[in-house]
């Protein structure tokens, strides 16, 4: 198996794509992915996130970029697996996990202890918690716009 890594004295990346100068995108959160989740799924997960934040008394991250990426990750899994499997975990068998349900959003740790390591739903005492429980589709698009 060949491992393709980008090595430097800084860091490397395992996926190929094209680069872009970051100088002019200082305030842009850029995620380059090979496949984007469907707009429909993103909208569903966006609505779900807003509702669930309200219901659980949690708040989105100060940095909405984090929120946006996670929502897209949930949407991506909803598209591919039929269920919004937590995007911030590594799995042996994603389909099996999605069927089993422990890590389907809202996952058991969130439901039981309000623990969301994705930083999607943050309790007010969390350092990273903002004051909002809303996020618009525009915000998500902008935060994850591909260059």
């Amino acid at each position, binding site marked *: 198996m*060949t491992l393709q*890594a980008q090595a430097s*004295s800084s860091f490397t990346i*395992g*996926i190929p794509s094209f*680069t872009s100068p970051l100088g002019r995108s200082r305030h*842009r959160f850029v995620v380059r992915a090979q496949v984007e989740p469907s707009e429909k799924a993103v909208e569903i997960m966006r609505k779900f996130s807003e509702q669930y934040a309200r219901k659980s008394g949690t708040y989105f991250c100060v940095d909405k970029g984090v929120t946006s990426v996670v929502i897209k*990750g949930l949407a991506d899994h909803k598209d591919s697996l039929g269920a919004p499997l937590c*995007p911030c975990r*590594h799995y042996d068998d994603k389909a099996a996990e999605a069927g089993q349900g422990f890590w389907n959003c809202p996952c058991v740790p969130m439901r039981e202890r309000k623990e969301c390591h994705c930083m999607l739903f943050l309790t007010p005492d969390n350092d990273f918690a903002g004051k909002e429980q809303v996020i618009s589709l525009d915000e998500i698009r902008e935060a994850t716009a591909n260059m």
Partner: protein
Amino acid sequence: MAVSVSASTIASLNSGLSNRLATSSYSSNLSSSSSLQFPLQLRRVRIGTAGLCSPSGARVLPLVKAKNQTFSSLDDLLSNSDKPVLVDFYATWCGPCQFMAPVLNEVASQLKDKIQVVKIDTEKYPSIADKYRIEALPTFIIFKDGEPCDRFEGALAADQLIQRIENSLKVKQ
């Protein structure tokens, strides 16, 4: 043996950035390499500040050059490294992982002589992620002499990460 190496330059974040998260720029540092990959020897990348320090003494971070290189395995990369290695296991759609991208840039720049930073996409290399029993993302493992010597999960700020790395490297001595 033909080897393809593509280089990308990443502008480092201003070191004066506070830890406030309001406007951070996230980027996955990606470069294209469409030709065949062959195992090659790790080339040391020197980051110099020649010509980049302003006369007033204000700190200008040098451009961090990242190179696309191919190794036959992570073990290969680890054994070829003359410095300890910080490995970041991430996924594209993991929010905290993307949050860490500029943080890692900052840390790599500040600790450039002490540690090499490597990122592994767990969806592209699931077997490596399995080997190290990665669960939550991001997971960071610090390798010294090819062996894991510290491991932790979750996003953290640059100064916290630097502190953690320095503590780990100290203990090993």
